[in-house]
Each structure stands twice: as structure tokens, then as C-alpha cells.
């Protein structure tokens, strides 16, 4: 196969056990060149274990994985030279300046001389830090630090970039700017793996892998997962007394789950049209007039909660919260 077109990451039947605890169980997927793959999962699902295996820091118990064509068990050093890693704490030196941090990471990655000067210039421009090269990192706001940390992680032009909850504590405008940079890297062919439990971060990914209890429980584009995965349709019900409505509405035929969301209830139903036509009348008949109902699109979080609960429970569980 043409190496330029080969998948950037191949994971095949990967398992990792710590004693009797199974942290990863038979996980398989590919990441194509230039793809932005999001790993979503509850705390302790196995996201970090998976990333550590892919970075060559942990040996899998079973299965195999290659990054840029290199087996992570056979040659972990070579894997690490080809990847960039950015943690949620950004790992910058607060008492060094912007350029000093970049030089420091250049040294770690073995980039020196003119290539280093060029990469530093590139990183400074990319991060929008021109004119602030001598500023101490401690004086930068969260969004600047985040973009500088990204610049440090890609100094050696890695083909694969790992981002561990990259926008923790960064405000929305900076977050959008950061994601524009990630999309530019992906356009240049860099594969990006993001672990997160922020749903707005997940929306920026080209594909999502949902991991729970060490297993891959869903894989697809954000659009497809939201559309197919919640096992029903969602209604939003607004009325004056949502506490009483919550108690009543669970008895309405066709309502599988109900939960409070802001000033309204979210109902998980099999047939949105059917329930929407009857539920308000039914509530009025039980002393709660004036309710209104409308169909809403499930969110990424609806999808997440539904699939995680369904993977843990014998019967399909609720999503509507």
C-alpha cells in the first residue's frame, strides 16, 4: 500500500489488564491520515490507558497497534519521535518566556539550528503570539497558553498529535480559535486524537470513538451517532410546574424516560408525533393545563449518556435528562 495513504493508526484487538482488572478489552479501529478522532468516555473508561499504549508508554496485554506504520511494542522510541502530545495542564514553564519554552521543547525533540528557528517562527505566528515572544508564560491568559502548548507539541512536525482534554478552562472564543488551528493541521495531513468529556469538543471531531468500561461501544461521525444512537426520539415539554409534570409524565404510554433539563423536561419516546399529540391533553386531564411540547434533536450528550447506560444495563436505559 502507498505509505502516504495508509491509515495513520491501526489498532487491532488491543487489550490491557492490570492484575485482574481489564482496562481495555479487544479494542479495534483505524485512524486515517488527517482525521480528527475524538475519544469520549466516562472517567476511568480506558481513554488514558489507550493513549499511553499508542504513545508506546504501556505494553498491551494482547493485540497490536501501529502508529505511522511502526509497531508500538517493537519500537516505542521511534513511535514517540513521530507523535506530539499536549496534556490538559499544558506542561509549560511559567518562569520562562514564550521563545524559551519553544527552544526548550525543540531541545527535547532534537530540533536545532535553522529548522528550529523556522519552527519557532511558525509556532509564534500560529499561536498569535507575535510581539509577545519575550513575555513570561505566567503572564499569558489561558487561551494564549493553550496555543503555545500546541506550538510546543508540534515543533518536530509530528504526523500524529495526541490532545488530552485540550480546552479545559479556556473560554469559548479562544476555544474556537484553537479548533481552527487543529483543523488546519488536519488539512496538512496530521492525524489528531483527542480525549475529552466535553461535548462541544466532540463536535469538532470528524469521528468519535465512545469508550466505556474498557470497550469500544460506538464509532461514527458526530452527525450519525446523534441521529442513530439514542434508541428513540426526544421531546421537550414546558409547563408551569415541572416537578408535578415529572411525576405524572412517566405514566404516559410511550414515554420511556423523563428528566428535568433547565426549565423543561426532556422525554425519551418511541414515537415523538404520537406522544406530542396526546401528552398535553393528558396532563391537563390530571390538573396541569398549559403544557407545550416540541420535538428536539438529541445532543451529543444525550447520545453519550444513552450509550454508556445501555452498555452497562441489561435493558435500554434513559437518555432524556
Amino acid at each position, binding site marked *: 500500500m502507498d505509505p502516504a495513504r495508509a491509515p495513520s493508526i491501526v489498532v487491532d484487538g488491543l487489550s490491557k489488564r492490570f492484575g485482574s482488572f481489564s482496562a481495555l478489552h479487544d479494542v479495534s479501529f483505524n485512524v486515517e491520515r488527517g482525521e480528527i478522532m475524538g475519544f469520549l468516555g466516562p472517567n476511568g473508561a480506558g481513554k488514558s490507558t489507550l493513549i499511553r499504549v499508542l504513545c508506546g508508554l504501556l505494553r498491551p496485554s494482547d493485540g497490536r497497534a501501529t502508529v505511522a506504520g511502526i509497531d508500538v511494542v517493537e519500537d516505542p522510541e521511534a513511535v514517540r519521535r513521530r507523535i506530539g502530545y499536549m496534556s490538559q495542564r499544558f506542561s509549560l514553564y511559567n518562569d520562562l518566556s514564550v521563545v524559551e519554552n519553544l527552544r526548550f521543547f525543540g531541545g527535547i525533540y532534537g530540533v536545532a539550528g535553522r529548522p528550529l528557528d523556522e519552527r519557532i517562527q511558525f509556532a509564534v505566528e500560529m499561536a498569535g503570539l507575535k510581539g509577545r515572544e519575550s513575555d513570561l508564560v505566567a503572564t499569558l491568559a489561558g487561551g494564549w497558553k493553550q496555543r503555545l502548548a500546541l506550538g510546543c507539541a508540534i515543533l518536530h512536525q509530528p504526523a500524529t498529535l495526541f490532545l488530552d482534554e485540550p480546552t479545559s478552562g479556556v473560554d469559548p472564543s479562544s476555544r474556537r480559535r484553537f479548533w481552527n488551528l487543529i483543523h488546519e493541521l488536519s488539512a496538512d495531513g496530521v492525524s489528531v486524537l483527542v480525549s475529552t*468529556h466535553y461535548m462541544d469538543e466532540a463536535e469538532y471531531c470528524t469521528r468519535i470513538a465512545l469508550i466505556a468500561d474498557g470497550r469500544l461501544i460506538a464509532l461514527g461521525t458526530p452527525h450519525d451517532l446523534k441521529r442513530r444512537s439514542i434508541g428513540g426520539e426526544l421531546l421537550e415539554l414546558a409547563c408551569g410546574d415541572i416537578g408535578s409534570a415529572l411525576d405524572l409524565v412517566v405514566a404516559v404510554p410511550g414515554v420511556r424516560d423523563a*428528566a428535568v433539563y433547565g426549565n423543561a423536561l426532556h422525554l425519551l419516546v418511541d414515537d415523538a408525533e404520537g406522544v406530542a399529540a396526546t401528552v398535553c391533553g393528558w396532563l391537563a386531564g390530571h390538573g396541569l393545563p398549559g403544557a407545550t411540547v416540541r420535538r428536539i434533536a438529541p445532543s451529543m450528550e444525550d447520545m453519550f*449518556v444513552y450509550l454508556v447506560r445501555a452498555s452497562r444495563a441489561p435493558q435500554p436505559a434513559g437518555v432524556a*435528562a
Partner: protein
Amino acid sequence: MAVAAEAAIDVRDLSKRFGRLAAVDGVSFSVAQGEIFGLVGPDGAGKTTSMRMLASVMRPDAGSIRVDGVDVVADPDLAKRHVSYMPQRFGLYDDLTVDENIRFYAELFEVPGRAWRERAQRLLAASGMTPFGKRLAGQLSGGMKQKLGLTCALVHAPRVLLLDEPTTGVDPVSRREFWQILYSLRADGVSMVISTAYLDEAERCDRLALLNRGRVMYCDTPAGLKRKLPGAIVHIASNRPRELLEIVRGQDGVDGVLLVGDGLHVHVDSAARRIPELTKAIAQTGVEASEVTTIEPNIEDVFVVLLEQQQRAA
């Protein structure tokens, strides 16, 4: 929602300077009994400073704060009996068990033994934490730590709860459980102020104040804020969105384009007028787009557009 005769929290012309920086600059708002009020805004907007003054751990330079009728600035000790403050890192003792942490806070707040035990049992049950009473706090997951922090913050039955980014680092399943507890507190008449930079948190509040540079720009319900967005957000679903970006950006009536994983989010002046135009322009490129539809703006869309508008006007 029924508005009580007197607001649970009433903030008037609150200001705080640090040197030359006006961190909070004439902020006013009020929170009804049993209302969940959100403070949202970029870094440095004044969210945490406002929160600290409400919690009476920081004195304002000017302005007044009344909580349940008590003047917080004049009588911080009295106010503290009504108010509970849960900072981002709540002070749990990792080497004490769940039960011991709760007991510690109960004694700190001088809650009689019988009252706090019943209350703690109810709160732990609501958050699914009952089996973990003997576990060390240091061995809890992030989500469970937040729920324990909340239980400790509620052990003296405060009428007002202040939460600073309460679910940072908490996964969606635990976050939902956390919010179900907040909603049951709301049903009991507890008033809450929550600061957050995350839109899914903001969407769950009854009302929001959008802060920027120490001032309240807008204050409304999430639905009301969304109506303030001029125009509409259109989702273009395509597996080659990058190729569409420049074409879409150049169309009339397009105010902003955001690249998302499986397409583009386009801010247009009028969906009815621009969807047919966009569909036609995309068809001419030969790039396939499976869908061009209006989607509901989220709080982040509104937030970014309103902030940019203000920056342009400044």
C-alpha cells in the same frame, strides 16, 4: 417560575478594582428564591471575583449585596449562615473517608448531630454515594468528589448555594446526576448562582448573566438569549467541509463560518433567504453536502456573536 416577594439575592452596582484593573465594574442582578442563575463569560470577565464577593470572602470597593435580606458587606458572619460556597477545588480531606469529611463540615457549621446525619444520608442516596461512606475521599473519581463536595457544602441546609464551575473535569453521566441534585434543591426553594465557561452548564440554568470585562452585557433566560442572536445558524453536513469553507464564507448574508467535525456551522442573516442560495452555491462546486438545515443556536454561538458585536462597536 413564581417570583418571591423579596429576591433571595440582590446585587446592586457591585465594583472591585485590582490596581488599575476594574475586575467587576458596576454589576447588578437579582436571583429569585428557587432560581438557578448562571454567570458566564470569557476569562477575566469577573465571574470568580463576583462569586467571591457574594460568598463574603472578598470585600467589594462599592455596591451592595443582600442575601435573604442580610447585608453581606456589613454582616459577613451572619450571611455565611445562609450561604454555602463551593469553589472549583472544594477542600476535601483525601485521608478522611466520605463520612468523616461530611462530619467535619457538619461540626464546622455547628449542625446538630441528628440533623446532619439525616441530611447526609438523603444527599448521599440522591447521588448514588451511599455504598461509599467508608471510602477515603482520595480514592474517589472526579465525579464522586464533586458530589461529596456538594454534600459537604449542603450539610448546614443553606438557602443560597454558590458554585464556581462545579462540573469541570466531570464526565457527562456524573454531570447529569449532579444537576438532578441541583434541580431537587431548586424544588426545595434553594437559590443558586453558578459560574461557568461551559455551554452545557449554561443551558441548564433558569437565567444567565453574560459578563464581559467586569460588566453585565445581557441578562435573560437561555431561550431569551438565543432570540437575541441576529439571524440564524445553518448546519451544512458534508464530509469535505474544508472545500466548502471559502465558498460559503464569500456568500452574501454570511456573518461567520465555523468548521465542525462533520460540516460547517454558518451564521446567516436570514435562514429562509440564505439556505436556497447556499444550497445552489454548494451544488455548483460539485462537493456533496447531504444537508443544509437550520439548527438551534447554542449558548456558545450566541456568546461568541454577541461578544464580537460588542468588540466591533467598541
